[in-house]
């Protein structure tokens, strides 16, 4: 099941640049939350803070608080946190030296699961959830990079789901894909909503409108507006949100 996230006064730096300037945001469980905004508004940094990936880069700094299911993520071991908060990246990044099967179970293996039958069951379940099973079930021992771009991205989603996270972060997961592959990914996100807290960064506003229950608009490192997707797109409260969604900038 998904878990709620509560972000308080989150500030983040990338070198001398302050990319997040005090974000307060509540993120509901079993809900798809889209984060929109122009390039450089801090939306990627924001999701990368939630699994503490931002800190892994040199010269970065974070202050503020993120509460996951009642507990501060900064009180947790980042390695353990990332098993609860999974992530899918902009470009598909399967491990090229591993087969499809090995890619899916890579995270589970790190957790110490060695039993062959369990691994097979996990791989099938995860690939089914990622709507990829039927396409790859006969060639699980082929390389992960033998798949098309859209299939690779679904493989990466299966790999993230195999670890059974509660939260799934997606950083523009369809931006490198063609329209048909994008449709697959969007359908998949809708199906996953019931069991996960999904946070998706997108620069595609139609995509946010199609899949998100709520939408947050970021601008220059600040959260301008956050509300139900229909509200944001039909009746934005802030002038800047309106300008952005009507295409006046960004």
């Amino acid at each position: 099941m998904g878990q709620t996230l509560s972000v308080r006064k989150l500030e983040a730096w990338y070198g001398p640049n302050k990319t997040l300037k005090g974000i307060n945001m509540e993120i509901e469980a079993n809900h798809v939350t889209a984060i929109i905004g122009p390039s450089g508004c801090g939306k990627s940094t924001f999701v990368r803070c939630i699994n503490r990936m931002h800190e892994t880069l040199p010269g970065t700094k974070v202050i503020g608080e993120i509460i996951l299911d009642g507990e501060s993520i900064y009180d947790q071991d980042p390695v353990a946190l990332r098993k609860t908060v999974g992530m899918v990246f902009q470009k598909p990044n399967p491990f090229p030296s591993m087969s499809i099967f090995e890619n899916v179970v890579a995270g589970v293996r790190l957790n110490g699961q060695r039993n062959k039958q369990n691994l097979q069951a996990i791989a099938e379940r995860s690939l089914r959830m990622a709507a990829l099973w039927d396409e790859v079930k006969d060639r699980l021992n082929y390389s992960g990079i033998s798949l098309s771009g859209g299939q690779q991205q679904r493989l990466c989603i299966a790999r993230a789901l195999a670890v059974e996270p509660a939260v799934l972060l997606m950083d523009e997961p369809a931006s490198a894909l063609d329209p048909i592959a994008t449709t697959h990914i969007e359908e998949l996100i809708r199906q996953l909503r019931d069991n996960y807290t999904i946070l998706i960064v997108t620069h595609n506003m139609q995509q946010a409108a199609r899949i998100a229950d709520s939408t947050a608009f970021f601008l220059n490192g600040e959260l301008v507006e956050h509300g139900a997707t229909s509200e944001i797109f039909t009746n934005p409260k802030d002038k800047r949100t309106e300008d952005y969604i009507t295409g006046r900038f960004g």
Partner: protein
Amino acid sequence: MSKKRRFKTSLGDQFLRLVTFLMAFSVLVLMAWMGWQMFDAARPSIHTFGFGFITSRVWDPVKEQFGALPFIYGTLMTSLLALLLAAPIGLGVAIFLNEMAESKFRAVIGFLVEMLAAIPSVVYGLWGIFVLAPWLRETVEPGLAKWLGFVPLFQGTPVGFGMLAGGLILAMMILPTIAAISREVMASVPNMQREAALALGATKWEMIKVAVLPYAKTGIMGGIMLGLGRALGETMAVTMVIGNRPDILPSLFAPAYSMAAVIANEFTEATYDLYLSALVEVGFILFGITLVLNFLARLLVWSVARGPKGGNLV
């Protein structure tokens, strides 16, 4: 209707193609020519001793008996020893510099490691004579004999100058090669591979194991191969510490000899034609071993790089 379309290439490009082809071809010619010359000069020795040259352990210029086995053994053993020591350490250095060290630290240590490769081998040899060999004789070899003396490799009188000293000095000399190349290759692993592993809840070591090393393994093996090539042919430093005794003894402490060392030592003393010819044949065998080992290593790299179906890494 199929008609082959040809783009007209400019005269300049055609000329460039010809010139670069000749340059590439000249390397092949040079190698074949060298091989032939050595074979030709070694002919008297090949005729006299036949296959026995490779299998005989007697090297006695006074009785005109020549067998190269002790040198082949010495070269292969010292190189193997050097690889066993330098490959894991070089890899460790590369992992530290690339994945662990802070960036200011990284540049300094990286530079120092690469400096090691620039030290002339005769300097390594001198250091081996005055520092390494006495240290081995007085501390390391008695210690090894005491704790691991049940293994034949670590039995016998501690001499200092011998197989162990040769292997160690070679290990030091090929370490920077292996470290520098491994580091270069690891630096080329895309960061998104590291992030993929970290996002799954990998620790740093798990990330290296899952994302960095598999991606870089072909290049790392290439670096080890280059190190092996250097170890096989290294002459000066090994000659100075290996003990120069044409014998095959089980102990690593005992003096030994290598192919490159015997050529360097005895070439000026080769007073008659068969002696000279035998030395050239040793060189010919070294040439052949280097080629064959490099070829085998290349095969190994290919088979490892192939990975799962449909995804070739090279």
